[in-house]
């Protein structure tokens, strides 16, 4: 589903990734492990377009996405739950979830229009963009009115599903997100990511700052989502033990390079991983 090849990326003069390659097969959970500063988060940021790669390629469903903007990548069916959750702290839980569904309702036919635009010549693109700028808003509005009922049902179904996974969010739906506990915030971040009905979910350190019990609960739900919905998951984690428990494959990053790549079973047996990351 996702193929990453020889990714090089940098923050100004500081190179974060020196050629990272990884594969995420459809329907699997893949864990990316490594110490602080190994390039785990940077890898996710490049995949979702927040950070531009210097070189290398990323294919999602066979389509090159490394030149697309974050907004475009999201509308193709990839959700990124970022490091530190990045919730809208002043908005309510429900508003955060509504925003999660924005990519599906906000723009009329995001993916189809994008593919159409890519097939055009330079002048054609300019003309397309101008027409889009002039009529896009009106067409989006017309579409919103036409599909209002359908969208409403879609949204309610997605919301109900999120509340089934995280019942606490239903109780707190009108509460301001910034006042939730750490675990609830992480649940909301994942729920918000799922509202986009993604086929691929990128999770960045879901355990960050959480108590072990809460972390375990969240990982179990992530596993359930993968099994029952068939959502493919790429999870970055410092807690290697837990991550390898639910993952099918694992990659170990060291200073911006892939040091080890194997099934999670083999990784758990590997002497090097046990010593460095599992604390055994």
């Amino acid at each position: 589903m996702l193929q990453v090849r020889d990714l090089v990326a940098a923050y100004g003069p500081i190179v974060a990734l020196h050629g990272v390659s990884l594969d995420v097969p459809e329907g699997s959970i893949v864990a990316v492990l490594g110490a602080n500063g190994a390039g785990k988060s940077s890898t996710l940021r490049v995949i979702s377009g927040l950070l531009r790669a210097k070189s290398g390629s990323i294919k999602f469903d066979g389509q090159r996405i490394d030149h697309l903007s974050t907004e475009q990548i999201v509308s193709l069916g990839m959700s990124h739950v970022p490091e530190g959750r990045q919730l809208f702290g002043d908005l309510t839980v429900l508003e955060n979830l509504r925003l999660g569904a924005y990519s599906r309702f906000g723009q009329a036919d995001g993916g189809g229009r994008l593919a159409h635009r890519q097939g055009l010549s330079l002048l054609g693109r300019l003309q397309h963009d101008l027409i889009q700028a002039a009529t896009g808003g009106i067409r989006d509005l017309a579409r919103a009115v036409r599909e209002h009922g359908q969208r409403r049902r879609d949204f309610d179904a997605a919301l109900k599903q999120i509340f089934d996974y995280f019942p606490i969010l239903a109780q707190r739906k009108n509460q301001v997100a910034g006042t939730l506990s750490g675990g609830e915030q992480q649940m909301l971040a994942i729920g918000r990511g799922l509202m986009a009905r993604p086929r691929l979910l990128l999770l960045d350190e879901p355990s960050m700052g959480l108590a072990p019990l809460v972390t375990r609960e969240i990982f179990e739900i992530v596993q359930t989502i993968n099994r029952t919905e068939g959502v493919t998951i790429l999870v970055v984690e410092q807690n290697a033990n837990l991550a390898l428990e639910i993952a099918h494959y694992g990659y170990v990053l060291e200073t911006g390079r892939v040091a080890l790549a194997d099934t999670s079973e083999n990784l758990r047996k590997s002497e090097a991983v046990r010593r460095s990351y599992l604390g055994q």
Partner: protein
Amino acid sequence: MADFWQQVVVGLATGSLYGLMALALVLIYRSTHVLNFAQGEMAMFSTFLAWSILIRVDNHYWVMFPLAVLVAAALGGLTERVVVRPVEGAPILNIVIVTLGLYAIFSNVASWRWIGRPKPFPTPPEIHVAGLKFFGGDALHVGPTVINYHDLTIMVFAALIMVALYLFFQYTSLGLAMRATAHNPVASRLMGIRVGRMLTIGWALSAAVGAVAGLLIAPIVLLTSAMMVGALLYAFAAAVLGGLDSPVGAIVGGLIIGVSENLVGAYTPQEWLGPEMKLTVTLCIILVVLLVRPTGIFGRRALRRV
């Protein structure tokens, strides 16, 4: 007592105008953290454009009005896209300089294009909708208090705009996306929100609100290229008083300033303070409020949690 309420009503009307301009400032500030110094000049420019439109549509005010607001919105959006976008992410001082440049451009182009004496600008004329008469006519009497129709129009417009914006931000997905962009641009991009487009829409909205203020101020002070200079100063004060990131605060701040300015002008003894000192006294009141609440009445301290 009758005179007191009279002064309050007049203060509320001018305060609504300050509030509308402050609202225009806040709409841009809360999404980009830029104080748009060109806000007043953009409103003035839009009003001149409205005047040009008015001549071309045979002085049909209510034909001109929506056209003028749309043109102003387009002008605001275009300004963001062409002039402000390239400096996005630059240090805040650079952006401030850009808005000061815009101030000069709008001011100069208006003086050059619409040269001549101050032009009288009409108040909104009466209009008949479904047998009911709106606007125009004689003054409205509430007990002994007399409310001039233009003052009433101003207050009604301010209230309508406020309610419309509230509904827009609270209940539409576009409004929600704009609020999200203001709070966290990076997370907004991850939601699939095109942040740049939201900023363009924010500038367009702001310019439209400013244009309404301009259209309502012009009949009072006459249409000149300097007509918004005073109003903008009060608008800045109103926005700061209400809290720079709160639309409600902008209107409330405007009303407080309008009323207190009027009361100070009317009731302080001539030989001691008097009308000459009303701006000074008003700014002192603001200073005191800000000492107690540095973020303004409705302003919120940024909530950070790691």
